[in-house]
């Protein structure tokens, strides 16, 4: 049987881990198979969690989150017969598949949508904890905004510097109000549970918000402009489906293979005009073909469009 291990945020984090869980469940529903799962409570438990499943014979074992990179690198060699999939990090081993996402590309698209939806040319970004990954989101987003409107202002805030920043909707609300009073009328939240407060306050104040990771359009219908999708669910689903034959090596999930994207559904169809759609589709094609390069913050830890 396959197994999935979630990161510290827990499987119900309304975004990243939850997406992994959704993918695993979809697989279970479709195939009738069963899978094992576990949540950890401490960094020290990572190695143990992997080993526990490996010893119990689960295969493949999928782990969600970049922090698994280091422990997996030590453990993988001990279990050459087991296939591992790691999401969001690259581990170089003959029995590991590394799945990374081009979040900057997806964020670029929602950035474009934000710029087009904005009336005043000021948009906001609210990140959770200040870590490189979230800066990657912010940087891609800012590039997308400026691509549509070079004069636009992007206000970026991080909620905090501890894991508590993922679960502080009150501060999320305050940041949202702060950004609105600086003129922002579209706000992208990449902040886990804190985002709940952002989406809520944006709806209360009659401005747009953008969700992240999973499709969060339903959370405040008519107010969430779109959601930046990071199809972790697909990555898990694919790994589970492939079973022990899972292809090892690096797999980049980008716009070209539906790894990232933006959400369009009944909740926001009236918000996204055809022009917006067209512009975004065009950019998608350009990015997929390599014609348009979105700068990845992680590549050199700088961002041409935004200061941190």
């Amino acid at each position, binding site marked *: 049987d396959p197994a999935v291990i979630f990161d510290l945020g827990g499987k119900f984090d309304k975004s990243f881990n939850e997406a992994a869980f959704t993918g695993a469940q979809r697989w279970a529903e479709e195939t009738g198979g069963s899978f094992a799962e576990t949540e950890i409570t401490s960094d020290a438990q990572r190695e143990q969690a992997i080993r526990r499943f490996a010893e119990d014979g689960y295969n493949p074992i999928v782990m969600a989150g970049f922090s698994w990179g280091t422990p997996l690198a030590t453990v993988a060699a001990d279990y050459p017969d087991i296939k591992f999939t790691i999401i969001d990090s690259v581990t170089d081993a003959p029995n590991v598949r590394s799945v990374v996402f081009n979040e900057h590309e997806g964020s670029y698209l929602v950035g474009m949508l934000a710029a087009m939806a904005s009336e005043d040319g000021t948009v906001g970004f609210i990140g959770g904890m200040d870590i490189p990954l979230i800066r990657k989101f912010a940087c891609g987003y800012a590039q997308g905004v400026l691509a549509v409107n070079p004069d636009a202002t992007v206000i970026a805030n991080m909620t905090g510097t501890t894991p508590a920043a993922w679960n502080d909707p009150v501060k999320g609300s305050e940041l949202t109000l702060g950004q609105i009073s600086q003129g922002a009328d579209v706000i992208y939240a990449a902040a886990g549970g804190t985002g*709940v407060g952002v989406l809520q306050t944006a709806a209360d104040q009659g401005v747009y918000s953008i969700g992240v990771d999973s499709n969060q359009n339903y959370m405040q219908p008519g107010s969430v402009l779109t959601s930046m999708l990071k199809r972790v669910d697909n990555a898990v689903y694919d790994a589970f489906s492939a079973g022990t034959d899972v292809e090892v090596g690096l797999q980049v999930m980008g716009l070209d293979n539906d790894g990232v994207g933006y959400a369009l559904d009944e909740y926001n169809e009236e918000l996204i005009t055809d022009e917006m759609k067209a512009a975004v589709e065009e950019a998608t094609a350009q990015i997929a073909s390599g014609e348009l390069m979105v700068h990845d913050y992680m590549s050199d830890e700088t961002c041409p469009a935004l200061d941190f």
Partner: protein
Amino acid sequence: MDLLALFDIAVLDGTVRLAVPLLLACLAGLFSERAGVFDIGLEGKMLISAFFAAAVSFETGNVWIGLFAGIASSVVLSLLHGLASITFRGNQLISGVAINFFASGITVIAAQAWFGQGGRTPSLSGDARFDPIVFPGALTKIREIMKADWGMKVYSELLSGHTIIAYAAIFIVPLVWWVLYRTRFGLRLRAVGENPGAVDTAGISVQRMRYSAVIICGVLTGIAGAYLSTGIQAGFVREMTAGRGYIALAALIFAKWRPWYALGATLLFGYLQALAIRPDILERAIGIKVQTQVLDALPYVLTVIVLAGFVGKAIPPRAGGEAYVKER
């Protein structure tokens, strides 16, 4: 440099919103500690109330019932604290730590068992939530307020548009002051925190006084928690109190266990927190761009500076932290 920017209406407005839960929790702690029962469990009580207020509001569709449930849950934890520290003369600090752990865990478990949404409640809407009270003629949307003139800004943003709990909190400070210093109950309460022996020999039950104080503490933290999940938010998220109980405790010591000072201390904390989410204003005021990390540390650094420079020694209620034992 534009120091006036520091008094931006939006920041002041945020100050009010952020100070309200701190103030309520701080006054809650004031009752308890003035009666001689130290309480580091404010955080946990706020959290459990935030959960039950949101959960029951959602189920009943009536935020007042939710508020009541939140208060009830917080009072239950208060009574537990009372049982441990008053009846069984246990260590008050340990009891408080336990309550914080308990609330942190049980809210998620209960939310998961109840709603299956990963330790949070569904979003609240309509009557399941405290709506802002809008003054006549006041604007409600920040984007409109921004365009209005100064007077309108103050009226619409700062004065209008808060929830009923926030307005009530304004009256609570004089009320607490009055209860503490002008009523029989207050006299006895203060006495029991200073010298329970005096209260006991005056024919008043020390236990009853302390239990009443602890219950009031539960009610006020309950309101504070409910304010978070049903007032400024529309639902419960795990750990959503995010350390506010500890900050309230710091404010209480800062305020030297006095009600008006508590208002000042919590407003200061609220202000610093509100300012910390506006790097743009800080930049305007001091001319330097400040990083997230600096912003994050700012309220705490300033608190230490204020504490070291201006506040001096705070003398806690003399019998605080100790159980009352007649027969040593």
